[in-house]
C-alpha cells in the first residue's frame, strides 16, 4: 500500500502555557493542518450557559442582552468527558450528567455603583465554574448596577460544540501560517547610504529587520523572520527606490507551518490540541466505518470479468 505523502510529521513547541501554545509543524500537508484548525474551532466540546431564568432584573440591561452575555462566559471544562451531550443523556430534561446549574444574585445596597462579574456566578459543580485567572480574579464584567438596582437569575450550562454556537468553542484563536523566508542581498545593502538603509529597515511594519544605530549593517535576527506577515511592504519599498532584488519574501517550504492556539481558559491549550487530533481520528474512524457498511453492490463496476479486484492502490 503506498502512501505518496511523506508521513513523518514533526512538531516543535516554541511556547506553551495554559492559555496559549505556539508550535511549528513540519512535513504535514496543508489540508491536514487546516482540518485540525477547523476542528479546534468547531468540534471540541466544552460547557457554556444555554438556559437562563431571570428571576429579577432591575438593571438597565434587558434580559436577552444579559442572557447573551452569560452564554459567552467561558466555563472550566477540564472534565468535559464526564458530561453527556443533552440529547444523548438518559434523563428526560436535566440532570447532573448533562447540566450544571449556576446562580447569580447581586444588589447595589449602597449609593455606590457596583459591577457584576462572572466570578459572582455560583456554580453547583466545582468542576464547572467561570474561568478566572490571577490577573483578573473577578473575571469578566457582565453589567453594572447603580444604587438600588438588583439582578438575580438562574442559569444552566450544557455541553456543546463550536459548530452549534461559537460560545462552545474552547479556543479564542486558532491560526496557522507558512514559515516565511526573507532574504536580503548583501551586495545591494553595501551599496546603500545610511539614510536609505534606515528607510528600508523602517519600511517593515513587523520589525523583521534589525540594524545597528549607525545603520551600517542590516540583519534578520534568529527567530525574527517568523514575524513576517507577507505584506510585501519591503519588496515594494525596494522597487520604488530602484533597489530591485534587495529583498525576497516567500514561503520557506510548502509543508512548514507555525500554529498558534489560544484558549479561552476553559481547557489548557496543549490539551485542546491533543483533543483536536483525537477528534480527527474519531471522525475518520466513524466515516470509514460508515463507508465500509455501504454495501457491496457498488464495489462491482461496469464489467463482470473479475478484472476489477480490490487490488492495492
Amino acid at each position, binding site marked *: 500500500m503506498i502512501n505518496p505523502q511523506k508521513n513523518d510529521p514533526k512538531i516543535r*513547541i516554541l511556547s506553551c502555557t495554559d492559555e496559549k501554545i505556539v508550535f511549528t509543524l513540519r512535513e504535514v500537508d496543508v489540508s*491536514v493542518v487546516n482540518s485540525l484548525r477547523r476542528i479546534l474551532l468547531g468540534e471540541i466540546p466544552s460547557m457554556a450557559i444555554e438556559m437562563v431564568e431571570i428571576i429579577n432584573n432591575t438593571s438597565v440591561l434587558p434580559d*436577552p442582552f444579559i442572557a*447573551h452575555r452569560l452564554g459567552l462566559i467561558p466555563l472550566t471544562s477540564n472534565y468535559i468527558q464526564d458530561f453527556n451531550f443533552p440529547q444523548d443523556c438518559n434523563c428526560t430534561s436535566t440532570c447532573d450528567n448533562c447540566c450544571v446549574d449556576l446562580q447569580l444574585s447581586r444588589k447595589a445596597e449602597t449609593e455606590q455603583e457596583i459591577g457584576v462579574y462572572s466570578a459572582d456566578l455560583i456554580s453547583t459543580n466545582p468542576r464547572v465554574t467561570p474561568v478566572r485567572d490571577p490577573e483578573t480574579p473577578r473575571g469578566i464584567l457582565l453589567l453594572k448596577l447603580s444604587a438600588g438596582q438588583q439582578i438575580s437569575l438562574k442559569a444552566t450550562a450544557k455541553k456543546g460544540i463550536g459548530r452549534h454556537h461559537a460560545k462552545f468553542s474552547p479556543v479564542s484563536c486558532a491560526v496557522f501560517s507558512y514559515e516565511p523566508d526573507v532574504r536580503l542581498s548583501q551586495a545591494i545593502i553595501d551599496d546603500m547610504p545610511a539614510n536609505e538603509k534606515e528607510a528600508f529597515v523602517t519600511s517593515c511594519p513587523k520589525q523583521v529587520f534589525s540594524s545597528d544605530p549607525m545603520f551600517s549593517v542590516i540583519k534578520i535576527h534568529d527567530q525574527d523572520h517568523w514575524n513576517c506577515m507577507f505584506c510585501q511592504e519591503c519588496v515594494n519599498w525596494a522597487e520604488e527606490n530602484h533597489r530591485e532584488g534587495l529583498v525576497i519574501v516567500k514561503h520557506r517550504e510548502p509543508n512548514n507551518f507555525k500554529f498558534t492556539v489560544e484558549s479561552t481558559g476553559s481547557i489548557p491549550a496543549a490539551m485542546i490540541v491533543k483533543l483536536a487530533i483525537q477528534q480527527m481520528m474519531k471522525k475518520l474512524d466513524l*466515516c*470509514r466505518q460508515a463507508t465500509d457498511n455501504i454495501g457491496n453492490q457498488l464495489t462491482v463496476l461496469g464489467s463482470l470479468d473479475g478484472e476489477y479486484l480490490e487490488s492495492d492502490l
Partner: protein
Amino acid sequence: MYFTCFEFYAKLVVMNVPGPEELLYLPEGMDKVTCEEDKRVPHCSIFTFHLEDHTLGNLLRMQLLRYPKVKFAAYQIPHPLVNDCILRIQTDGTVTPKVALLQAFDDLRSITENLEKAFDEGHEIFLKRK
C-alpha cells in the same frame, strides 16, 4: 421568564435557520454515508457524507488526489444550510472508488496517529527543556 440563548436570536431576527439539532444529530435510521453510482462516466461514484463539512471533504479530496489510480476527486457543500458533503470519485477502473476512499481513510488515520505521536514527543521535549 425562560429563554434559551437560541430563542433570542429567533425572536430578535426572524430567521428560517434550521435548529442546532439538525447540525449535530443524524436523524433516526439515516445512514452517515450514502453512495450512488454516476452513470454518465465509468468507474465513478458519488458519496454523500451527512453532517460533515469542509473539514472532512478537503482532507479526503487531497489524499485521494495523491493516488495515481484516482482520475478525479472533488467535493462540494451543496448549500450552507444543508449539512452534507458530497464527494465525487472517479478511478481508472483498476480499483473501485470505494476502495480508494477506504484507502484514503486508512492513510489519513495513520497520518493523524503520527501527528499525535509527534505532538506528544514535542510536548515532552518542551517540558524537559523548561
